């Protein structure tokens, strides 16, 4: 049984508009049998934080194209993507790419 996890979540580049325009969220994930990974975190976000129009954030079991995920200031691609096992105190940032100029 893994202990509950405290995480710092951030949304930016417009992704925060799906979360009541709040960029920073301090959340606590309940303890569960195994460790939490990003795949499970996305489900948790969809059920607990994301109220409206989930298709603008999630597609299938991952984030929609155009959203970059950062784990502790690194591209999630370098960290194992959906399989990254979350640690207590991690910061996970979801950034929507900007195209304006």
């Amino acid at each position, binding site marked *: 049984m893994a202990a509950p996890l405290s995480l710092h979540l951030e949304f*930016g*580049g*417009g992704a925060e508009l799906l979360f009541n325009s709040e960029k920073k969220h301090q959340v606590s994930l309940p303890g569960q049998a195994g460790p939490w990974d990003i795949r499970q975190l996305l489900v948790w976000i969809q059920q607990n934080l994301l*109220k*409206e*129009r989930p*298709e*603008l954030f999630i597609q299938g079991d991952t984030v*929609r*194209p*155009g*959203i*970059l995920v*950062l784990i502790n*200031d*690194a*591209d999630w*691609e*370098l960290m194992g993507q959906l399989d990254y096992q979350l640690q207590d105190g991690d910061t996970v940032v979801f*950034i*929507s*790419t*900007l*195209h*304006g*100029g």
Partner: protein
Amino acid sequence: MAQALATLREKFKEQEKEIAALREKVAQLEMSKTPAPRPDVKVTPPTSLTAKSSLSNEDIMRYSRQLLLPEFGVKGQINLSKTSVLVVGCGGLGCPLAQYLAAAGVGRLGLIDYDEVELNNLHRQVLHREENQGQAKALSAASAIKSLNSTVQCCPYQLQLSPENALDLIQQYDIVADCSDNVPTRYLVNDACVLSGKPLVSASALRMEGQLTIYNYKGGPCYRCLYPAPPPPDTVTNCSDGGVLGVVPGIMGCLQALEVFKIASGQGSSLHQQLMMFDAQDARFRSIKLRPRQSDCAVCGQNPSVTKLVDYESFCGSAATDKCRKLNLLSRDQRITVQAYKLMLDKAEPHLLLDVRPLVEVDICSLPFSLNIPLSQLEAKNSDDIHLLRERISHLKHQIAGISQPPVFVICKLGNDSQKAVNILEQMSGLQVDSIIVKDICGGLMAWANIVDPSFPQY
């Protein structure tokens, strides 16, 4: 005898230097005498940059403050003067970028933009002037650059960068700066840079945020490595919808110029495999480490599937402009033109006008008799708003006894959100509110301002 010879030689050298300086001045004057640059409609190769081996006295005077930097120095200045930079987009990013590169003495600037200067550009596109409204942005930017530094070779291109012309253009430049404002152009510029082996310094800005990266540089990723699939079109916000604070693209364009400057002078970019994000609200920069070049990338990977430029508008499902999309969700009998609505107003026919724009836009302007409930609150079925709507509709029903379904008209800025709202209200009709007939006003308040009431503000 030997003494006299040495003195003469010294004098001779001095005279030679003077002649060289004069020659340079004559050349400069001749260049500035040439008529104002005409925008290139077809892509013609610019004349090649002549390699300077030393700086003239005037160069030294003009660039002295940056020549003093050990990181830059004479070598950096000479390198910069040999460098050509293609600026894709002369808007909020392209203006400050081109301005600083020209001021610093870059060799050649290519300035691409298909668009014309509008009043609502001036708060952020700082090279354009009030008197240049209606003029091609590429030309307006070029004339501002010319008056700032006449020694910079400036090539305005009044055209839309396209799969047909992108490679020809990009091949003529050393570094590309993506200052564009839409997704298809970003993929196009990326692929063209990968195919021509050019570094791409890419910035973007919206609302109060900015992002900056360098692609296709020293084994780092390209745009497609990070974003293999384009975002769904309805998740993309442009500056005319989302708004942008002018200083934000200003900051991002300056940072972008800085990285171009470092590559051009020979120091190399600091953003290799990095993304820099700027949050203007918190006054905070954040730099994050990016993935390296992806071996399975469609354009820069080991077995690329994109080996020539493709149709980027169909790949992205959106047009290569930042103009707003026009939705078409409703049938003709669910819509009414602004002219027809005006006739109805003139006849004082009772109805409810529902404005579904966000409050920040209603603060800018609104029709005085409208009821404002933002689309997002309708979508969320906000109970206070539903209550208000129900009351207003039932009041209207009493007013026009005998008509079973009171008319409700929905308006927004351009006529997209109003169509979505009509669909929501039709679902509510007869359930959460009395049964109504609901229509959207085609083209919204901007059509109202254009066609019916020219004194109504446009934004």
